[in-house]
């Protein structure tokens, strides 16, 4: 910070973009410190669980944001990469005894490769054709896993108990370590998005998002750009899936591969602010508590009121804040260069 006071070496106008990026980084570090301290003030399990879910979905939707937001490819099939990550780490633990800390990386790699394999045929499609194709690919994954006995079929897999250990990401009944695991995940996803935003890739992706033809005329290689975004997005989503599997201790196709997860992963980013650094976290911080609280207070009777509130909120926020909740703070990020209206 003292450097900022030093006289500039050249009489150039200070670079607004660099200044903003430095500010984003400082904000990120401050928020990380605050969130790291927060668990000491939260003792009840319900709130701890809520915080874990908020952080997990913040990371997941940031992962989605890399492909869907920055690169503009609206994927509605991210549950596949999420499920691949969860299944990979769980299978490696069950069959080879590989600790989930490593299984997580393997899960991410499988998720990334999965995203590349899906991207190969699907990136030829544009707009709604692409979105629908990703829905279908996700459904195919779900159906195949339900019928695949090697991975437990419809009855799913249970994560074996391995005692309390960071290596195995098992902490008995304590939820406190999980807050740090998910915080680490969310922070990692944020950092990736931050680095991407300022990189050459980030600019290529936003060019592809805004106008494919124009991007191509500027020598942006469109297909490789999309594939790179997909790989990073799939990797992070796979890691998130592995963390989720380890956290809940049991996975089956319905709990980890269902199409509804694809939407759950995308929603925080969309409502928070698509293609922005803070959108996914902000969206997750609003959406997950509303969904969880309405479910636990109104959903237990099965009356459907919780779904009405949740759905109504999505409609209201989408219509009232089309650029996302982030626009409330006037933070447009680098992506929303054109801003609102």
């Amino acid at each position, binding site marked *: 910070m003292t450097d900022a006071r030093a006289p500039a070496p050249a009489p150039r106008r200070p670079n607004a973009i660099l200044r903003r990026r430095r500010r984003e980084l400082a904000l990120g570090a401050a928020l990380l410190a605050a969130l790291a301290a927060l668990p000491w003030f939260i003792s009840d399990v319900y709130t701890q669980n809520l915080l874990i879910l908020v952080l997990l979905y913040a990371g997941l939707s940031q992962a989605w944001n890399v492909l869907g937001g920055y690169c503009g490819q*609206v994927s509605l099939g991210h549950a596949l990469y999420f499920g691949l990550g969860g299944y990979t780490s769980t299978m490696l633990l069950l069959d080879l005894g590989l600790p989930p800390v490593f299984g997580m990386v393997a899960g991410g790699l499988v998720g990334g490769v999965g995203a590349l394999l899906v991207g190969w045929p699907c990136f030829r499609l544009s707009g709604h054709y692409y*979105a*629908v194709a990703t829905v279908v690919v996700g*459904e195919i994954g779900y159906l195949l896993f339900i019928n695949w006995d090697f991975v437990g079929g419809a009855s799913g897999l249970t994560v074996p108990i391995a005692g309390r250990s960071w290596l195995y990401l098992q902490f008995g009944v304590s939820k406190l370590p999980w807050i740090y695991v998910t915080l680490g995940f969310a922070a990692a996803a944020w950092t990736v998005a931050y680095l991407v935003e300022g990189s050459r890739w980030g600019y290529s992706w936003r060019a592809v998002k805004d106008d494919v033809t124009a991007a191509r005329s500027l020598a942006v290689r469109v297909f490789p750009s999309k594939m790179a975004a997909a790989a990073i997005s799939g990797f992070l989503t796979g890691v998130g899936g592995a963390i989720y599997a380890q956290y809940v201790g049991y996975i089956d196709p319905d709990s980890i591969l269902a*199409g509804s997860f694809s939407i759950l992963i995308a929603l925080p980013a969309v409502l928070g602010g698509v293609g922005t650094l803070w959108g996914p976290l902000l969206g997750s911080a609003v959406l997950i508590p509303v969904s969880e609280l309405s479910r636990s207070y109104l959903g237990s009777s099965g009356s*459907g009121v919780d*779904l*009405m509130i949740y*759905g*109504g909120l999505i409609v209201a926020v989408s219509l009232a804040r089309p650029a996302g909740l982030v626009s409330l703070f006037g933070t447009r990020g680098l992506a929303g260069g054109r801003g609102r209206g």
Partner: protein
Amino acid sequence: MTALVLQAVVSGLLMGLIYALVAAGLSLIFGLMDVVNFAHGEMLMLSMFAVLALHGALHVDALLLLPVVALIMFGGGVAVYRLLIARALSVASNRGMVQIFVTFGLAIFLRGAAQFAFGGEFRSINDGWLSNRTVALGPVFLPLPQVAAGLVCLLAFAGLLALSRTEFGRALEATREDRDAVALIGIDRDRIFAFGWGIGAATVGVAGTMLSTFYYVSPSVGLNFAVIAYVTVALGGFGSMLGALAAGLLIGLVESLTALALEPSLKQVGMFAVYLLVLVSRPRGLFGKI
């Protein structure tokens, strides 16, 4: 064996007609204004509950309720357009995603509302004129409700075709071609859009009414049909009626033959695989406009 295959082919085609009609409503709305309605399955679900409720209250056969439900759904479609879609189309930024997630939020809301009003259990109507009857076509035995549903869906397609010949239909087509130019020749675009949503929803209402004569009804019944509808529309080409019909029949056929050849639980894998194969070679679907 041949009888078995023949049976699978005919019942697949009959189911395909329903898929086609559900997809037609989706395709019509898309072709008109580039909006994919992610609440389409829930509209199907609502029309089935409308049949259930009216049947319970009036003790009238589901078939007689067909025009009533279609009319109710028409009103519902217009209301959805006026209240939500018109607003979603007028946002300043991020229009594509706002449209997706507004209809998606609506879908969740409608599912919750149905659960609130009717409860979550599975129900069915099995005391109609058509119920529990079969027709024999040579070696093939078909449940009468499915045959009737297929026929009604064909009629509905004929109706859609006839509609495109009317003044309104031509205005619809003109708006689809160029939504800005039509304003110059005195067509109220907003009204045409609302009308398109009405027709799209009414089409789903017809499919839902026929479906309710032989299929269970529950708040989540729309989910499965919605995914099939998206596949059908993308396979046939967004915006193409003929494409929806052809793709619907193809999907129904592939589904029923996959169930016969592999396992019933894998029946959808076949149709999804066909869809992906076609899309890789024809990114705009079978009949899509480039």
